[in-house]
């Protein structure tokens, strides 16, 4: 395996992704502005479904480009053992990690907005604003096309440098770290099932939140029913996704108190709140109960957003908060 050649191929691949994705990344905030304008201004409202459809298509095209990028990554990125000289496997980076998380969330909400039928006219502006916020944040903050997968590239380029350095200890250390990430993270079946289920639930909860706001605003019980339908649609993948995380966490984070890690902690709290919301709803006919149910629906979504943010700001086993910049990771691995 020629490590320098792989490094060059990766640089060229990242350049190709940026070439294809830069226009999409620039178009997303622009289209988001149009989306918000059509959602907010009554005389433009008729165009809202079309703009939302255009946004969903743009996001889908971008997702296609990212999928191609991931296939090429799989073909290029292998892990070779310095002890045996054999390739232990290729790295299958999932499509919903690091800089791509917000993007997939935006795409899912956009598709749900396009498919939305019940109370479509009332809910569509709120859903459109949510899509606009997510798409703009994905384009301006996460930047999946121009700064793709910084953690992965930091670790993998560090591994390539260490393997090419000719220092056996550095090569072995980098190999062990990379192989661990390959087996327990990137190629783990869990990483291919747990996050998409959670993002599907996040999408449904976003629509449920918009309906809950309408319920509070209008006190019209039909909106409560709509909020409930979307919440129960989200609750199934949320529960399944979180359950599937349990045996993986026991195995991969053995010896760590992972349940108090910020992200895990907040996720459990979010699940508790949605469980409480769906349970509280059984007593909706009691006097004044709808206020509590509505408050729980809104609180649950607020905690969902905090749960997402916690990954980046609160340190712990399930966190990017202590992540080093790519150059530092590479320099550190090379200097080992």
């Amino acid at each position, binding site marked *: 395996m020629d490590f320098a050649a792989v490094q060059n191929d990766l640089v060229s691949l990242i350049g190709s992704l940026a070439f294809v994705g830069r226009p999409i990344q620039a178009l997303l905030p622009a289209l988001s502005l149009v989306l918000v304008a059509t959602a907010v201004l009554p005389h433009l409202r008729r165009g809202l479904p079309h703009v939302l459809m255009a946004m969903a298509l743009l996001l889908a095209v971008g997702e296609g480009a990212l999928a191609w990028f991931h296939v090429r990554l799989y073909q290029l990125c292998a892990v070779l053992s310095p002890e045996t000289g054999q390739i232990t496997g290729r790295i299958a980076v999932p499509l919903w990690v690091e800089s791509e998380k917000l993007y997939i969330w935006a795409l899912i909400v956009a598709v749900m907005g396009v498919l939305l039928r019940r109370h479509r006219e009332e809910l569509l502006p709120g859903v459109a604003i949510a899509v606009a916020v997510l798409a703009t944040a994905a384009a301006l903050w996460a930047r999946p096309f121009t700064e793709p997968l910084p953690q992965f590239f930091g670790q993998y380029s560090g591994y390539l440098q260490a393997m090419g350095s000719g220092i056996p200890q550095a090569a072995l250390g980098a190999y062990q770290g990379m192989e661990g990430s390959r087996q327990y993270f990137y190629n783990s079946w869990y990483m291919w099932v747990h996050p998409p289920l959670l993002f599907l639930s996040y999408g449904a909860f976003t629509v449920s939140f918009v309906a809950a706001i309408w319920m509070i605003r209008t006190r019209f019980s039909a909106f409560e029913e709509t909020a409930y339908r979307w919440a129960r649609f989200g609750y199934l993948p949320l*529960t399944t996704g979180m*359950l599937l995380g349990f045996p993986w966490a026991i195995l991969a984070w053995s010896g760590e108190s992972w349940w108090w890690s910020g992200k895990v902690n*907040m996720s459990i709290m979010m699940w508790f709140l949605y469980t409480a919301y769906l*349970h509280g709803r*059984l*007593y909706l006919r009691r006097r004044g109960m709808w206020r509590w149910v509505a408050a729980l629906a809104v609180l649950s979504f607020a905690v969902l957003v905090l749960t997402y943010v916690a990954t980046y700001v609160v340190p*712990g086993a399930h966190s990017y908060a202590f992540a080093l910049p790519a150059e530092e990771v590479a320099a550190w691995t090379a200097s080992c």
Partner: protein
Amino acid sequence: MDRELLKRNWDYGLTVATVALLGGIGVQSFVGTIYVWWAQRTTENWERLGYAGFVNTMNAIAAPQIVLLVVVMGLCVPKRLFSRRVLAAVSGAMLVVGLVAWLLTDSTVVGLTAYLSLAGLIQAAVVMLTVAGVRGPSYLTEGRLTKTGSGLLHLGFIVFAVVVVALQRSTFMLPVFWAATVLMVGGTALSFYADHFATRRLRARDV
């Protein structure tokens, strides 16, 4: 107060207790997360020096709430099957068995496992009776499929609680965990969507 009203208030009380406990653990989680965020920003090397203490404190605060949650979950089980007097006797007996197991072995894990096992057995009977269409089990929901879903979901919760409480380091952990997952996911799907399918079938037949 008539029997039906008492039963409804017992149901309501258990639901409020469940929601309050879930809320309590939720608030603790939130405060804990904010504390970690604040501590790692203000205290140098906090991860190395303070994290273990933080985990111990969080475990100590959460433990009684988790135990109470398990107890409340167990108390939710016999209400489906028994009327007022028998319900009080069965619930009391479950608590006594758990307490005796705890006192005899000096282990909270054994006490909770004994309590959960009894709850699991009763819940399994509830599910079987519901599937068989016997009138006995009472639910807040309507329709046999929806009731079966609710029964399976609660059985799944109990089995999952057994995994968390007693089986984390056991070789049985994975198979029992998968059984709990199937029960919970299948139960959730049935209790949320069974009425929808039933209505569709009915409509198709009507046409």
